[in-house]
């Protein structure tokens, strides 16, 4: 697992350590950190060490500073192009199933047996208020209470609602299409949820009959 690229990284690291007189540059520290990360984590269950391999967005959003405007635009454009729209234009499932998925924070850790989306929850309440009846909700993301109602969705089949329905699908499939460094996982793109599961969560947010929109 420890790749050939690591060896130069560690050599740089020891050179940095040896040359104590001058402090390492930010770039040398970046290289050193990457080498130490790759050398320090191992496979455990379904969580393989290759999870540390970063794509452009992960790399560009690994700092307390936002990426350059041009990089952010590239990340967003690539993410938008990656979105797979639902087969047959079928966006809405069953809000009851959506609520169950939203409640579950399970999946993808090294103690989970399977990385199949069927084994995963949608993790929604970890970060969002959704149905007001659930008082145990997180605040990392915005409140989604009355999500469809506030956006004027009275009939999900009405063509007038298409923009918000499509945006919501796109946001869940690949959140980075609309904000390069969004905190939200890419549920479709990263295969965390399958199409059917996404349709259920869509219903929870958008179906006028969903408790979220009362």
């Amino acid at each position, binding site marked *: 697992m420890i790749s050939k690229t690591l060896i130069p990284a560690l050599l740089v690291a020891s050179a*940095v*350590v040896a040359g*104590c007189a001058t*402090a*390492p540059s930010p770039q040398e*520290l*970046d290289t*050193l*950190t990457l080498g*130490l*990360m790759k*050398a*320090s*984590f*191992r*496979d*455990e269950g379904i*969580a*393989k*060490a290759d*999870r*540390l*391999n*970063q794509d452009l*967005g*992960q*790399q560009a*959003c*690994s*700092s*307390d500073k936002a990426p350059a405007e041009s990089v952010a635009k590239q990340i967003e454009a690539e993410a938008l192009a990656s979105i797979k729209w639902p087969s047959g234009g079928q966006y809405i499932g069953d809000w009851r199933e959506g609520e169950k998925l939203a409640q579950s*924070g399970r999946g*993808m*850790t*090294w*103690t989970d047996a399977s*990385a199949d989306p069927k084994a995963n929850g949608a993790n929604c*309440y*970890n*970060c969002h208020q959704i149905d007001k009846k659930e*008082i*145990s*909700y*997180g*605040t*990392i993301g915005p409140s989604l209470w009355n999500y469809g109602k506030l956006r004027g969705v009275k009939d999900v089949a009405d063509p007038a609602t298409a923009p918000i329905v499509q945006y919501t699908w796109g946001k869940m499939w690949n959140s*980075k299409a609309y904000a390069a460094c969004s*905190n939200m*996982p*890419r549920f479709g793109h*990263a*295969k*965390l949820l399958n199409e059917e599961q996404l349709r259920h969560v869509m219903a929870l947010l958008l179906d006028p009959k969903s408790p979220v929109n009362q």
Partner: protein
Amino acid sequence: MRRLFAATLLAAASTASFAQKSAADGIAEYRAMLADGNPAELFEAKGEALWKQKRGPKNASLEQCDLGKGPGVVKGAFVELPRYFADTKKVQDLETRLVTCMEMLQGFNGAEIAKTPFGKDEQNNLTALATWIAAESRGLRFNLPQGHGEEKQMYEVGKRVFFFRAGPMDFSCASCHGEDGKRIRLQDLPNLTKNPGDGVGFAAWPAYRVSNGQMWGMQLRLNDCYRQQRFPYPGFGSEPTIALGVYMGVNARGAESIAPAIKR
């Protein structure tokens, strides 16, 4: 223990009936009831006995262990760790420094201890030792040294590790701990990019976890963060974990240590 169980039930009942009251208030009340009898005390007592007991192939105690303030000085050591040690030429946190002492003074195999799963054999002893040593600094304020080049470098590496985003959910430590006033479900999340306040975050661990009845040191705390980040498995005492300790510890300068704390 029975009292603890009753308190838990009471807390659950009051949480349900006082949904109007802020969730944070409810949790604080629950913790206050629990703190009345923190089982961490049992681990403190075990740790102190282990420190003084002659053990290992060399049949020696740890009483000459240098935790950074000189051989045998325990009080105040915890709030200055991780720090650089000239004998190992490494920045070490409390747990990795204890492994060094167990190796050098008592003749244990340090690599074997590092490979031992949490909650087993010498790892259990390590947790008890760390709990007692932390308790000897209770009420003192964090003041990690940053005079050595290696300590400064580890802070810079730690900051980069903290913001390192990867894995199937694109999480970094900063995803949850980079802003003020955020929660996951009802759990308040300290902002660890700065001093989050007395007894919060780095200043609370080791801690006794009521939900699973286990005593956790900082290494296990970080390990479980990485599990929840959906990362692969970090090596015990590996550089990124030490670097994170330096980053959080230096950021917490001036914060009062309440370790060993009690957590949900």
